[in-house]
């Protein structure tokens, strides 16, 4: 509180923007390093990423970064040049905008928008446009197939994602992420308010739906049909090299980071832990949120490394015939309980 009042909103905004600019590549690196390189190596007995640099292959990520730096920038002769160049920027943009509303403490949020969660879901689906642009403009058959699969998948799983959050919104009575955290902090489960009401306990169906849908939104492995490397050679990114390719990577892992943070905020109580309030919450908040989001990310990547890929038709029927009906039933039951109790 006392920190925020000393300086004008312009300076505050500049600082917050810089923080977001560092958090996204950093978050992408942390997830990429911890889960993609280390956890996957352990779970799937991959020796490569454990080797470079000696101890646990710590140099692997640095090596990957250096490699991106020295790659030539290649644009296929047939490509639609402007669209091809803009596509990675659109994907990164969508990732950046999600971070505007994620609260890291009572006062630590870029902009506490009233429509918080609605805004976050809206901007996160902007990446579909980037993916379609990339796939279309590459003038490559693999890329086009992959972009269409990706778009069909992203829009199909957008619905379970929306429906999963509605249960939380009904319980909290607000779209504002900060107030959703407070509702969990001050809530009570059947009159017992010892740990508040983390919505994972009362909205477990919603939490599961959200994770499954987020997995599909991120094109992670049971749902990685669009980038299936064995048949589509990594799909819509196939013609991209060097830094432009890196942007898709940052977009993918940055969005994974953001979705884990949103899941932690909606269902696990975000930055709050029982018994911590005021300035202390501002200091501890980011660490608490980080711990919770890493727990969620662990679940997502665990599934990613364990399950085989779904077929395209199975993928669509799972969304339309299973997840969406469950989501609607969950909303009805939550609504009835909310009015009845």
């Amino acid at each position, binding site marked *: 509180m006392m920190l925020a009042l000393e300086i004008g*909103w312009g300076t505050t*905004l500049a600082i*917050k*923007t810089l923080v*977001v*600019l560092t958090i996204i590549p950093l978050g992408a690196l942390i997830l990429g390093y911890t889960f993609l390189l280390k956890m996957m190596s352990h779970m799937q007995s991959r020796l490569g990423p454990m080797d470079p640099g000696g101890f646990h292959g710590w140099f692997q990520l640095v090596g990957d970064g250096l490699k991106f*730096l*020295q790659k*030539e*920038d*290649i644009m*296929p*002769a*047939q490509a639609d040049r402007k669209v091809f160049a803009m596509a*990675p*920027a659109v994907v*990164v*943009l969508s990732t*950046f*905008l999600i971070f*505007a509303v994620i609260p890291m403490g009572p006062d630590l949020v*870029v*902009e506490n*928008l009233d429509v918080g969660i609605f805004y976050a879901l809206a901007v996160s689906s902007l990446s579909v446009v980037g993916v379609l642009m990339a796939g279309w403009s*590459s*003038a*490559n058959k*693999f890329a086009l*197939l992959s972009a*269409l699969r990706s*778009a*069909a998948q992203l*829009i*199909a799983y*957008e*619905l379970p994602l*929306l*429906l999963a959050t*509605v249960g939380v*919104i*009904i319980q909290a*009575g*607000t*779209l504002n992420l900060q107030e959703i955290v407070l509702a969990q902090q001050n809530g009570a489960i059947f009159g017992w308010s010892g740990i508040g009401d983390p919505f994972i306990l009362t909205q477990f169906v919603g939490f599961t739906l959200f994770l499954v849908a987020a997995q599909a939104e991120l094109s992670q492995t049971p749902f990685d049909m669009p980038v299936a490397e064995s048949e589509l050679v990594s799909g819509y990114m196939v*013609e991209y090299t*060097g*830094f432009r390719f890196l*942007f898709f990577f940052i977009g993918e892992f940055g969005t994974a980071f953001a979705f884990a943070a949103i899941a932690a905020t909606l269902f696990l109580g975000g930055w709050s832990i029982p018994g911590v309030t005021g300035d202390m919450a501002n200091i501890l908040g980011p660490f608490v949120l980080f711990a919770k989001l890493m727990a969620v990310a662990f679940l997502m990547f665990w599934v990613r490394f364990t399950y085989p890929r779904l077929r395209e*038709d199975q993928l*669509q029927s799972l969304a*339309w*015939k299973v997840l*969406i*009906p469950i989501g*609607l039933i969950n*909303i*009805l039951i939550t*609504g009835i309980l*909310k*009015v009845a109790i």
Partner: protein
Amino acid sequence: MTEFYREYLAVAVLIGAALALVGLMLGVGKLIRPVRPQADKYITYEAGSDPVGGWGQSNVRYYVYALLFVIFDVEAVFIFPWAVGLEPLGIFGLVEMVVFILILVLGLVYAWRKGVLRWA
């Protein structure tokens, strides 16, 4: 400037910052990376063979799913304001939404029976 617009100014600033970061990284990359133009490098990638034809074709199925999505997504948007205001609306709001969701489900069942959700 009112508080409302100021909140969305932050969003605009973030858009600018994201684009600036992309531009900056590409600019730095341009200084470092090598440039060795060869005509063969700019051929569309097709798993090693020479590319055949021009643009690819795709399944019309995707279009049907997109249509279905538009209907359901617009309807999902209506659920949000209801979810926020359920407490003051009480039983009245609940009954209204049950009717609304039942109509939604009816649409899904119709599409299902019509075979729209079948891939083959």
